[in-house]
């Protein structure tokens, strides 16, 4: 039985730079961090792996420097890690990324459970997890706030529907995308660091995956960013006059205008 946890490196500052030509985010190693949602996926994977004696594996597609994020996952109790890195993977949208991750999972011989963060904070799409499930033909539950029970056949989870909580029992194999603060994320110990340093971290290229070049990287990406723009930041002030009731009514009208 195996749990795969997918992690992504994102810019650590809120100053994100777009490449003016490709209109994609410029990624550099310095100031890059683990996507905050993924930290919870890693913590869930490490805890469930330990509890059930399942193998855990961290998977990431990214530039070579991402190996430090994977090493960090190993220090937090994940058993082994695979970095998918190749120039051919560059420029991937969520679909091409999901195809690449899926190819890696197939090469591993599949997984019982795949955990992803609910979304990455740079692109904000929340698509990669569900698309990965689609590529592999696995079940998927998004925005999971609690993993309540796990057996060899199924997993019971609680998810946030936006206006309530939903409890689901899902057949394995399944992909779960987990919410922020869905569990504690313990820091590694000094001893954990030493263990993590000794765990295997492999690097796979497109050729290693035997991936179809039409499904990965820029070629495999149906999305085209045609134009990006910064929404104009408008500020207006409108004086409210009259009695408290009149002012409240005027305010209500303005709020309705904005939200409509």
């Amino acid at each position: 039985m195996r749990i795969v946890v997918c992690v992504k490196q994102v810019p650590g500052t809120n100053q994100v730079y777009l490449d003016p030509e490709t209109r994609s985010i410029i990624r550099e190693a310095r100031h890059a961090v683990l996507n905050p949602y993924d930290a919870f996926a890693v913590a869930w994977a490490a805890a469930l792996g330990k509890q059930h004696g399942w193998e855990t594996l961290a998977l990431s597609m990214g530039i070579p420097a991402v190996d430090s994020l994977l090493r960090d996952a190993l220090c937090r109790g994940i058993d082994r890690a695979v970095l998918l890195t190749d120039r051919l993977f560059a420029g991937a949208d969520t679909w091409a990324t999901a195809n690449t991750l899926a190819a890696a999972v197939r090469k591993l011989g599949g997984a019982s459970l795949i955990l992803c963060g609910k979304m990455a904070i740079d692109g904000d799409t929340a698509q990669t997890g569900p698309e990965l499930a689609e590529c592999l033909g696995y079940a998927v539950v998004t925005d999971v706030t609690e993993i309540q029970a796990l057996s060899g056949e199924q997993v019971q989870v609680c998810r946030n529907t936006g206006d309530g909580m939903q409890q689901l029992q899902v057949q394995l194999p399944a992909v779960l995308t987990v919410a922020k603060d869905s569990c504690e994320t313990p820091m590694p110990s000094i001893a954990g660091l030493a263990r993590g340093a000794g765990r295997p971290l492999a690097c796979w290229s497109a050729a290693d995956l035997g991936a179809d070049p039409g499904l990965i990287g820029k070629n495999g990406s149906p999305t085209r960013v045609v134009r990006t723009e910064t929404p104009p930041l408008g500020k207006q002030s409108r004086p409210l006059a009259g009695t408290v009731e009149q002012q409240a009514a005027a305010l209500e009208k303005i709020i309705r205008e904005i939200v409509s």
Partner: protein
Amino acid sequence: MPQNLIRALTPDQADYLRDESRLNGQAEWIAFPETEQQLREILSSCHQAGRPVTVQGARTGIAAAAVPMGGVVLSLTRLNRVRGMKRNAAGHYVLCAEPGVILSRLRKQIEDKHFAVSDWDEPARQVFEQFRRDRAFFFTPDPTEATASLGGMVACNASGARSFRYGPVRRHIQGLRVVLADGQTLDLERGREKADGRTLTLRTEQGGQLRIDLPTYTMPQVKSAAGYYAADGMDAVDLFIGSDGTLGVVSQIDLVLQPLPDLLWGVTCFFGEEEQAWQFTEQVRADSGTELVALEYFDSQALALLARYKASHPAFTRLGLPQRPFGAAITCEFQGEREAQLWDATEHLGRRMEQVGASPEDSWVARTAFDRDRLLFFRHAAPECVNLEIDRNRQQEPSLTKLGTDMSVPDDKLQAVMRLYREDLKASGLPYAIWGHIGANHVHVNLLPRNTGEYETGKGLYRAWANQIIAWGGSVSAEHGIGKLKTDYLALMFGEPGLADMRRVKKTCDPRFLLGRGNLFAPPEGRGSE
């Protein structure tokens, strides 16, 4: 009196009568200068009228130094611009800032490399251009309270966790502009105005001359913010740093920036017994290289208090705590340029833990900004819980205040002082919590009296400890300053001759004893507000 600059203090300005010591003072007037020129006018008019002046920065001080005892409150909150940038002889970037600049804001500006440079002169802008393209830098002093003002930090010679590696504020000041009590100004640059032996001769920009006979005492060889700094051939800036708002008003601070290391790790180690943590400190400190920047301590009572508040108070539910209770914890901060160097340093800590009988499994390693923030939250939570605890006790007995010590001892007295605290406290039955900068043999003992009887017991303990610590060559205030609450201890530390020396310095700089009355020592008799 410049009417528009000095106004009557109104009831809604009662906040200006206290600081974080929670002592309440009183004052008749208040002034908010916006330029050095206004500051000079205010001071010279108070000088002529013989009105006492209490300088205030951000009022985060905990020794009541900014609490007025009558007269005029001089708030520097509006003197808060960063005026320029230059390089010193060693090539370091130096920022020229007004005293009301708040530390947290300055940090953000340095981090973002974003300053309002439009009114800087051309040379300053050129240096800023180099700075902008250069690597990242930082101002190292880090008092836990980041809303402190630069002027307050200079006046108290503030420190923080990283002072273990970088030293207190004093080490990072290139120059000061000071307005004296009579409105004259001094422009001081480190290395330029130096004492001849223990005599310092200064010329004001208005042509006046000050001949200051510096104190003859020897400063303690420990971290200290107690009393005027004095040494043979010392720099004039060092006299004003740590002078608790009594010698002059600092109107500009030239502060030195240091390169920000690429990597910063925090490692918290947990111990079953407090003794293990003390031994660990001595060992780690002895073999530390340049990568160790801070060593912070939490005793069993502090950890228990945190656990109690995590369980009972919503503000602390997210506080990370170890799975089971421990006797003590030490947080070590490392910095460096290479991962490998910090891995080695961390592994070495693990071996040191084993040597004192602790397990490297019982530790947290924070290498990401997210995890480092959690360690910071942990460290901030300790004083916050203590304040809440005191507030709760005050509901029963409003006259109670926190009794918090700020004393340091030489390296070889660390274990002795920790044992002294613990034995006395256990015997007294007083609730307490200890934490702080153990790397500098400087922990804060926080006594949490529940009634006036316990309060008196606490004061007795404090005094007894001060006597012992002075005998060991320690300091009665390592970083908070003496203010109004610790004047007795300053007298114990330097004795009557030492106080007389300080009064003499004060008299030369402020002949009418108007600035910061009640700080450090009592004003001479019969010189109340006129």
